[in-house]
């Protein structure tokens, strides 16, 4: 169902987030403190925010928003703030947040406490999906251990949210923590202005907070020793598909896609295309993706997206249209059922993609897909529909000759291959 995750020493850079990992089990509080030392909380909150801003850290959940600026706007709010660590990892092809929470829970929790200190929060949540029961129990135990040791001035509450894809969206989490349904809301106001119970709320991905825990200890200069000046630091990535050693890796931001894939043992079969950014990302022909740095601006420049650092290698024997059709079908079943263009548009898009991929397009399916995309894009309260259209549009670009063949002649042999892209069981059956 999900990518195979193995613990690997990241090639290329010395591990930062993944320093201190042991093959014999998750890092407990003692091991964590032996590796990283204490979290300094004697810095003035504004000093900490300044340091984070100078570090150039941007969110690792997909949007890439500057973390320092977000901290500052939450800290500037009039009411007492709330900190929310998003560990719900809705992307089926991503495993890095679960990996980090499983193996280095205290680094994430240090980050929550550092963030709470910076913004003056009086409440702190760590959010997971309901179904992650074992991980939830382990994190609860870790939070307990920290309370006994008196580490967190604001105790960390571990909370489960519904498993739907769109409930991982930040406004959905905020609404759920305020006592409402876990569905995205209409913005503005955004969470940093009016979040949980109307209070200014910092919502950050768990990896972002783990970086914050290290920046609070070692400073912005240390953070910038790795990565490019415009995109500093390290990041976690999840590599899967036709690759020799799939798994979670820590790389310098800006590492070329091809170099990352070579770190992972190289392609297991000649690659046709690479999906960078997961289901909110885009297909790129393998030779286009290979030299591109894993960084927001660089990937955007070639029509791609960094997303949450997901890289999936599509082998030449697979059909990219069939893979995309299954994922669009899945995304169409995971809407929050709130906004018409998403609720009706995504199933229509999925039908057209499935027509094109599996049924022979009868010379009109590709056109149908192209017509639907602008009718859906940008018309939802959240970015869920835009993710699906971006993926479909990139499939038409990257697999244009295939799309023409499917449309005129019929399905290629690749559609019979076992599906490569993970689609959670609840949504299968298209």
């Amino acid at each position, binding site marked *: 169902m999900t990518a195979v995750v193995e613990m690997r020493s990241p090639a290329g850079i010395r591990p930062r987030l993944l320093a201190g990992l042991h093959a014999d089990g998750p890092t407990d509080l003692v091991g964590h403190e032996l590796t990283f030392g204490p979290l300094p909380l004697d810095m003035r909150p504004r000093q900490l925010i300044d340091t984070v801003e100078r570090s150039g850290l941007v969110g690792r959940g997909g949007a890439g928003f500057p973390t320092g600026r977000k901290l500052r706007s939450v800290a500037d709010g009039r009411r007492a703030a709330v900190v929310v660590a998003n560990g719900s990892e809705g992307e089926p092809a991503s495993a890095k947040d679960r990996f980090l929470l499983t193996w280095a829970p205290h680094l994430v929790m240090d980050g929550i406490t550092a963030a709470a200190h910076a913004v003056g929060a009086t409440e702190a949540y760590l959010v997971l999906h309901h179904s992650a029961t074992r991980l939830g129990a382990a994190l609860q135990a870790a939070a307990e251990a920290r309370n006994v040791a008196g580490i967190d001035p604001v105790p960390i509450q571990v909370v489960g949210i519904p498993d739907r894809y769109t409930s991982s969206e930040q406004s959905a989490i905020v609404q759920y923590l305020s006592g409402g349904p876990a569905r*995205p*809301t*209409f913005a503005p106001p955004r969470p940093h202005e009016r979040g949980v119970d109307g209070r200014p709320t910092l919502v950050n991905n768990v990896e972002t907070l783990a970086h914050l825990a290290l920046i609070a200890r070692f400073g912005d200069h240390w953070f910038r020793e790795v990565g490019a000046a415009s995109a500093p630091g390290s990041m976690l990535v999840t590599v899967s598909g036709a690759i020799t050693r799939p798994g979670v890796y820590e790389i310098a931001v800006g590492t070329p896609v091809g170099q990352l894939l070579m770190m992972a043992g190289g392609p297991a079969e000649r690659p046709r295309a690479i999906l960078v950014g997961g289901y909110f990302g885009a297909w790129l022909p393998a030779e286009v993706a290979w030299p591109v740095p894993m960084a927001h601006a660089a990937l955007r420049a070639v029509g791609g997206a960094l997303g949450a650092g997901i890289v999936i290698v599509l082998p030449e024997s697979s059909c990219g249209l069939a893979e995309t059709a299954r994922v669009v079908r899945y995304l169409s079943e995971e809407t929050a059922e*709130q*906004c*018409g*263009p*998403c609720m*009706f*548009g995504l199933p*229509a898009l999925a039908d057209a993609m499935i027509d094109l991929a599996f049924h022979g397009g009868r010379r009109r399916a590709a056109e149908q897909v192209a017509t639907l995309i602008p*009718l859906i894009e940008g*018309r*939802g*309260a959240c970015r869920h529909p835009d993710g699906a259209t971006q993926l479909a549009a990139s499939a038409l670009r990257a697999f244009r000759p295939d799309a023409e063949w499917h449309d005129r002649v019929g399905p290629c042999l690749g559609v019979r291959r076992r599906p490569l892209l993970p689609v959670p069981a609840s949504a299968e059956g298209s």
Partner: protein
Amino acid sequence: MSYRLRVNPITCDAHGVCAELLPEFIRLDPWGYPIVPRADLPADLVEHARLAAAACPTLALLIDRPRRRHG
């Protein structure tokens, strides 16, 4: 100074009243939901837009406060 229209896609229920009252600016998608251009509202349509916003059964049509023109 110019006005812009916005739809709250969560509250919008595809009644289509807005497209009927403001056909010069709003059209409907295949599912009956309004497609609102992101462009500034022409000055002669502002009053009609106000009526359309007030007539929306779910109050999903929003008129954004005047913004300064850039450039």
